[in-house]
């Protein structure tokens, strides 16, 4: 008995070693700029590290030690304490989430754009809860109808109250980040015991560990939480224009972050990855291109080689809504992620370069993920599955419609067809007034959104959370 398992592999073992060697060269000779004195001191107190002003040079032995001490797999729980999934670098499987930090919300029926509000946060998070192929929720938007100095804390409260799925937490303000962790801990108790909160941090590309990020990392590590450390580079602008240069430089940033985390506390669980966008030289926007997807897979393979759990890009960003543009990128991302070694794809749902959250795009994406997962499952190849006896029995010119295998499997196989669009032949499509695929998608989305439900403890959490915030945030 054998299983046909389709896979994509981008780098050979030799190329992985080559990328690693270039990366070590960069870290040792170019170094990274570390803005915070506290962070620089942490680096410089370790042997194998040298500095020059705010530049820190990390040598191979430090990287090696960090790779040894960081866990190769991380268990992520839901809010109720049940194991949601395991991010295992030795056996990577892709887990998808919706996101991220959009400033606008695209109305599912009309595509009208409005500022992302607290109500939109509630809807978006409940949508993440409802969709079967959404494994986690990543701060879908930045709330605009609450003052900036408290919007992120209220957003965190809405996230916690409207789903029990794991949460990837993106909070840019360091003070609000601490407020968010305090709030979550007061509502939930010990966050580290069965972690369902995964904070997300970026260095500033190229090669800067900024103060905000290092401070938030310290806070998170001391609280015992796993976190995602992800580089966002734009090839041609903040990163080299070549795929190879971008891969190496972003890899150096990731390993620098890993070293820093392990110096703070050995054994800290870290998830590494990057968002390798390309800078479009006419419109000056960042874009996801085939190079992005290649680098996403290459980075995932580097992390698998390092035995470090991975978080990559999610294909969100290029569309203008639930359109052909978005669909192409989403398909390319979701399928290649499932076929490669991608661990997390946490940010599905953004359009216009992650500025506009579109529930309809998310619902379409959920269907793409479902099909991509079916594809990546492959199929069984053995005597039973081939069924030579049955083929011989039915013979030339026969029909398999009523065969034993068909009767036992047709319902299962039917699940491979779209769950959004019916199969219409030309005549039937014309008879039904030539419906447009987008209209049926909107109809489906409308139904999904109408059925959204809050977790049972929603009201209790909101009430308790608001009471805490009333006291702590004046």
């Amino acid at each position, binding site marked *: 008995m054998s299983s046909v398992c389709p896979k994509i592999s981008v780098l050979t073992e030799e190329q992985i070693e080559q990328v690693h060697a270039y990366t070590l060269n960069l870290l040792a000779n170019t170094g990274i700029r570390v803005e915070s004195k506290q962070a620089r001191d942490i680096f410089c107190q370790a042997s194998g590290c040298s500095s020059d002003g705010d530049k820190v040079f990390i040598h191979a032995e430090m990287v090696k030690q960090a790779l040894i001490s960081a866990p190769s797999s991380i268990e992520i729980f839901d809010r109720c304490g049940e194991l949601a999934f395991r991010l295992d670098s030795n056996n990577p499987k892709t887990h998808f989430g919706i996101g991220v930090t959009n*400033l606008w919300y695209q109305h599912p029926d009309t595509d009208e754009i409005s500022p992302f509000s607290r109500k939109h946060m509630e809807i978006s998070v409940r949508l993440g809860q409802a969709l079967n192929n959404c494994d986690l929720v990543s701060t879908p938007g930045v709330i605009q109808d609450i003052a*900036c100095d408290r919007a992120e804390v209220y957003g965190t409260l809405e996230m916690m109250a409207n789903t029990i799925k794991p949460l990837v937490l993106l909070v840019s303000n360091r003070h609000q980040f601490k407020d968010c962790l305090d709030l979550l801990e007061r509502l939930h108790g010990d966050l580290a015991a069965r972690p369902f909160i995964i904070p997300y941090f970026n260095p500033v590309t190229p090669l800067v560990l900024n103060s905000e990020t290092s401070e938030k990392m310290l806070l998170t590590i001391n609280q015992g939480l796993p976190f995602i450390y992800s580089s966002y580079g734009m090839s041609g602008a903040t990163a080299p224009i070549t795929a190879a240069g971008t891969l190496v430089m972003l890899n150096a940033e990731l390993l620098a972050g890993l070293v820093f985390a392990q110096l703070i506390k050995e054994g800290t669980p870290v998830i590494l990855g990057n968002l390798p966008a390309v800078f479009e030289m*006419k419109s000056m926007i960042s874009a996801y291109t085939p190079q992005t997807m290649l680098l996403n897979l290459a980075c995932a393979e580097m992390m698998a080689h390092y035995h470090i759990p991975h978080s990559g890009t999610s294909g969100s960003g290029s569309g203008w809504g639930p359109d052909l543009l978005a669909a192409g990128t989403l398909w390319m991302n979701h399928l290649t992620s499932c076929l490669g070694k991608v661990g997390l794809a946490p940010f599905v749902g953004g359009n216009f370069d992650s500025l506009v959250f579109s529930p309809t795009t998310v619902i379409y994406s959920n269907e793409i993920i479902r099909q991509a997962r079916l594809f990546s499952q492959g199929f069984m190849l053995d005597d039973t599955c081939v069924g030579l006896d049955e083929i011989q029995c039915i013979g030339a010119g026969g029909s398999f419609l009523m065969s034993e295998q068909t009767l036992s499997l047709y319902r299962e196989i039917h699940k491979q067809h779209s769950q959004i669009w019916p199969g219409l032949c030309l005549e039937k499509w014309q008879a039904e007034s030539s419906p447009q695929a987008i209209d049926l998608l909107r109809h489906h989305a409308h139904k999904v959104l109408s059925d959204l439900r809050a977790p049972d403890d929603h009201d209790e959490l909101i009430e308790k959370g608001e009471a805490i915030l009333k006291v702590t945030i004046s």
Partner: protein
Amino acid sequence: MTLDRPDGSEGAGRFIIEGDQQKARQITSEALSSGVAAKDFLDRELIPAMDVVGARFKDGDMFLPEVLLAARAMKAAMSVLQPELSRVSAQARGKVVIGTVEGDVHDIGKSIVISMLEGAGFEVIDLGTNVTAETFICQITEHQPHVLCMSALLTTTMPAMKEVIRRLKENQLREKVKVIIGGAPVTESFASEIDSDAYAEDAGATVTICKRLLSRPE
């Protein structure tokens, strides 16, 4: 527009547009040596060339690196003209102070804006990133620019722009300087809400807006 002079000789404008800084510098030097007035040369050859660059970029006919090369060539030519311009008190198109606001360390967008402004003939004073309201006020008091440009890449640092404008008013500077804001999360409505003069969606728009804000009635 014709890139060469009426006599058929190659003008500096051609080399500005092509981003050839050596040639641009050389032809500018030759022009000064032959007695052409610096101000005339600036107005007739260099600034029109950068206007062409701006227009082509806006129309999608040029790539950003080509624009930055053109701006660098313009700067090279300007370095030849500058001593003469200073001597005859000729002014740049205007003076701009620019910085990324407090709490924000992103600067690639700001750097592009600076290159394009300098290329368009503006004098630019770059305050860098993570600039406090206090520093903005001190630098505006010292340099007395025509325009203040502020940039933010994070939603959480946008309020710092509002604080700078509040401090400008407090220090009776608001009426003396035009304020343009920009950056990925910044919007037209936010610009209006905090009482800035304009929102620039990208570097090219910043140049256009600076020209518009500083244009005087004939």
